[in-house]
């Protein structure tokens, strides 16, 4: 553990190491052995060091540094405070697992050569770390763009396929539209001074301009986070990328957007307005419900997880929205509770979503199949991946005693306090919003049963699955690390909240103080009000399990006979009679029909080879994006009228411009 003052230097050292590893990859682009056995493991060690340094810096004072890079008069300002340190901790801890997995994942002959992948990968994580450290708008935007570009190259690593190029383009487009929003937001924030965040903190904006800055930040960072209605790139880009990259994007990159939003809302803006919180809350709820309903009807396992990321971002936004509203009314303890829920969910989502994305990567490598309808029964072929994925599945479904439940619990506790809001309508409407949160959380359980059940359980739906092999040792190690994280975050919430308290102390001036009665009991606000002890919970379940098992063994024989499945005595049972992904999603399609744009081709009863086809599409694509595309096309046609291709016409334009300028400038 380094001395407190040197944490920032150590983090910069790790970032330099990552860049060096990336460059080393460029010099040996096809040396798989070097890339997978040296560069990626070294990157993972660096990530661990970064996490340790960030953990060390959390409690201490903010450290800053000016790097003489960039343009002559615009050096990069870096600053490491509690908020940055928390997200760096998340980045380091999750990246360590993903890098170890990636060491076993990237292969020769799959799109981009491994050495180049290594470059993009390390530039990507280094730029994310620098985004979290940036302390002026210029550095922030440079690193933000580096992050977008490096991840674009990672997404399109299999660029020979047209749909992957298309996904990459959509991603790049929305990333830049969002970046414009962020740039304009900084423009509004900086007032008349320079572009360092220190100046922005000092500026006292009028409420109108503060609201403009808020709206731009929400738009810009929302586009990166996958907030409705800017989410369309996410389900395209995540499946297109290689699995470790999907994991990084979902687990860490979406969180940099959350970081940016928190930075602007609570650090750079000096005031909060109550209805900003309500706007974020409403968008968060819509995002969560939309994400989970769509994820329930997907039949591609990575798209399903991508939509589930949208849902989780929705939960985080709900927490932030509540925090803003509470803070605006000066209810700091409750703001701390809501913000803690949001931050806790951020780190939880980073762990379980990367675990699941990596598990799909192993499945993809073992079976070459991403469609849920062609998988099944992999728990017998790939026990390591299956059992570790089960932990992630239970965690993401929000089940106790794993980590997903803790943050949902905290969020619901925050909702239970919302009737105390001093506003006549909010104190009634906000508690009802909890119903939508609960519905989304319950649907997440449905989605994850579908995901896990169809991929890992049942009988293999294709004969080729019989040759599927389990993940290699590196992949297993990465998965074990992330699964252990899910369990640790689940059973030791008091320790985790102790870490998060540093952030809420910095942003809100108030900490939550997770427990009054020891490390085991999580009792935010007061022990009388609510308490939850996941460790005790786990112990009781394991104890009763053991006791029951022993009792059954002792009193009765353990006789067991293997036989073919009974299935009500139906002998002609085949693997194709199991529910497919479409079948399992059918109740959702029926209950939430207005959400979807569906096309169904039903076979007639007389078809010899009946085929059933259903396509489910996003209505927003037709309602929002295609009209925008049409308007853009129309405008371009108008602009094309100017383009004549004859030099005399262009000279006329120049002449007219000159005249107009003369007229105005004089």
């Amino acid at each position: 553990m380094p001395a407190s003052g040197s944490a920032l230097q150590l983090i910069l050292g790790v970032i330099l190491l990552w860049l060096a590893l990336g460059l080393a990859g460029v010099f040996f682009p096809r040396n798989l052995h070097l890339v997978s056995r040296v560069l990626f493991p070294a990157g993972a060690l660096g990530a661990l060091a970064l996490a340790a340094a960030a953990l060390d810096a959390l409690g201490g004072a903010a450290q800053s540094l000016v790097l003489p890079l960039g343009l002559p008069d615009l050096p990069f300002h870096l600053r490491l405070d509690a908020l940055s340190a928390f997200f760096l901790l998340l980045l380091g801890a999750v990246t360590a697992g993903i890098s170890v997995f990636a060491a076993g994942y990237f292969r020769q002959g799959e799109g981009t050569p491994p050495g180049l992948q290594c470059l993009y990968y390390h530039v990507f994580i280094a730029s994310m770390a620098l985004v979290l450290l940036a302390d002026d708008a210029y550095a922030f935007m440079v690193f933000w763009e580096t992050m977008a570009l490096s991840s674009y190259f990672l997404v399109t690593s299999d660029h020979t396929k047209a749909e992957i190029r298309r996904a990459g383009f959509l991603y790049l487009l929305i990333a830049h539209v969002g970046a414009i929003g962020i740039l304009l937001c900084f423009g509004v924030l900086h007032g008349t001074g320079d572009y360092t965040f220190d100046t922005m903190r000092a500026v006292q904006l009028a409420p109108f301009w503060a609201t403009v800055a808020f709206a731009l930040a929400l738009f810009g960072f929302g586009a990166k986070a996958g907030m409705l209605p800017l989410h369309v790139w996410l389900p395209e880009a995540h499946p297109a990328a290689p699995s470790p990259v999907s994991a990084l994007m979902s687990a860490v990159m979406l969180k940099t957007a959350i970081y940016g939003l928190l930075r602007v809302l609570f650090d750079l803006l000096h005031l909060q307005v109550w209805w900003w919180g309500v706007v974020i809350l409403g968008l968060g709820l819509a995002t969560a419900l939309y994400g989970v309903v769509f994820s329930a009807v997907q039949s591609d396992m990575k798209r399903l997880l991508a939509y589930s990321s949208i849902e989780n971002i929705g939960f985080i936004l709900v927490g932030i929205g509540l925090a803003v509203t509470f803070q605006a009314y000066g209810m700091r303890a409750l703001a701390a509770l809501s913000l803690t829920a949001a931050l806790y969910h951020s780190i939880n989502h980073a762990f379980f979503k990367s675990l699941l994305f990596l598990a799909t990567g192993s499945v993809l490598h073992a079976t070459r199949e991403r469609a849920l309808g062609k998988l099944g029964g992999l728990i017998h072929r790939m026990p390591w991946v299956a059992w570790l994925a089960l932990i992630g599945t239970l965690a993401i479904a929000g089940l106790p005693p794993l980590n997903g439940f803790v943050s949902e619990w905290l969020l619901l506790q925050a909702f239970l306090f919302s009737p105390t809001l001093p506003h006549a309508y909010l104190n009634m409407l906000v508690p009802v919003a909890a119903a939508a949160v609960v519905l989304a959380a319950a649907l997440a359980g449905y989605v994850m049963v579908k995901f896990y059940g169809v991929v890992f359980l049942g009988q293999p739906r294709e004969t080729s699955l019989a040759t599927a092999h389990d993940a290699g040792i590196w992949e297993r190690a990465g998965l074990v690390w992330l699964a252990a994280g899910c369990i640790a975050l689940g059973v030791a919430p008091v320790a985790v909240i102790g870490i998060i308290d540093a952030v809420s102390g910095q942003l809100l001036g108030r900490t939550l103080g997770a427990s009054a009665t020891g490390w085991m009991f999580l009792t935010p606000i007061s022990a009388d009000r609510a308490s939850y002890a996941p460790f005790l919970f786990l112990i009781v379940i394991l104890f009763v399990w053991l006791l029951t098992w022993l009792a059954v063994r002792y009193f009765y024989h353990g006789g067991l006979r293997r036989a073919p499945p009974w299935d009500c005595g139906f002998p002609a049972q085949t693997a194709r009679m199991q529910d497919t992904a479409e079948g399992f999603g059918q109740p959702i399609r029926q209950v939430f029909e207005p959400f979807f744009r569906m096309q169904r081709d039903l076979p007639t009863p007389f078809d010899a080879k009946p085929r059933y086809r259903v396509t489910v599409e996003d209505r927003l694509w037709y309602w929002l994006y295609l009209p925008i595309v049409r308007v853009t096309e129309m405008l371009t046609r108008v602009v094309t009228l100017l383009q004549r291709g004859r030099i005399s016409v262009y000279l006329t334009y120049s002449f007219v411009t000159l005249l107009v300028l003369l007229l105005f400038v004089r």
Partner: protein
Amino acid sequence: MISWPGLVAQLTEIVLAVLLAPVLLGWVNQCRAWLQNKSGPGILQPYRTLRKLFAKEAVLAHTASPLFRATPYVLFACMCLAAAIVPTLGTDLPFSPAADAIALVGIFALARVFIALAAMDIGTAFGTLGARREMMVGFLAEPALLMVLFTASLISHSTSLATIVERLAHMQFVIYPSLAFAGVAFTMVSLAENARIPVDNPSTHLELTMIHEAMVLEYSGRHLALIEWSAALKLFVYSCIGIALFFPFGIAEGGDALGLLLALPALVAKLAVGGFAMAVIEMVSAKMRIFRAPEYLGTAFLLAVLAMLIHLLLES
């Protein structure tokens, strides 16, 4: 903070729940038989079934994974934990800080996810069909149940079940219209969650209409016994939640021995009345088509939300 009498009361409560649960199921079935003018198998029948199943050899499909074998134990453990945190006799429960009302819903969700996964494990048509239906009922019933508990929590300013019961028991002279709505919602949810008519029929022999039974078709022997016992425990726990929220009178506060002794007959009487009421509801209603279930549960959900709104509008 853990007191010896409390610990004794806690253990008594768990053991009592585990032992009494099959009787409650037997009582409901017996009442139903009486209402149908049949003589009925007697209220001890579930015990005989359990004894028979435990003694039998378990037959396991070739395609079953360890998850399938572990699930009955997980279910049983979840239901025991649920029984431990719901106040049935007294409110001085050392386990009660371990899980509050929200965590209780989490326990039921954990059990449901496990049994749905186990149903998909064998890979039969009926298993996956049951899992899909169960999860559909679950995602609609879970929010409704949580909203009911939310209403009670808002009234009593706590999510700890023991505290909720203590505070509700001291308010007997104030009428809470929100609790009436919540009560109706809770009744509807508990019928659905316990696989009773009108959502599911526990005694059906028609595979196509099954939900819970379709999921456990592949289980036999001791595994099936544990699942049946867990189902009985679930019914017992749900009944106790209903009693604790809506009829908390008679549940002993603190750890006084006399109160606990008096609480036992009160509990038995309340359960008997509740079981009879459930049999009557099952008698007078018909099983719905599966796609009417979302409407039914959606109604329960809306009633629960309405209960919360009424509380916020009128009572706070």
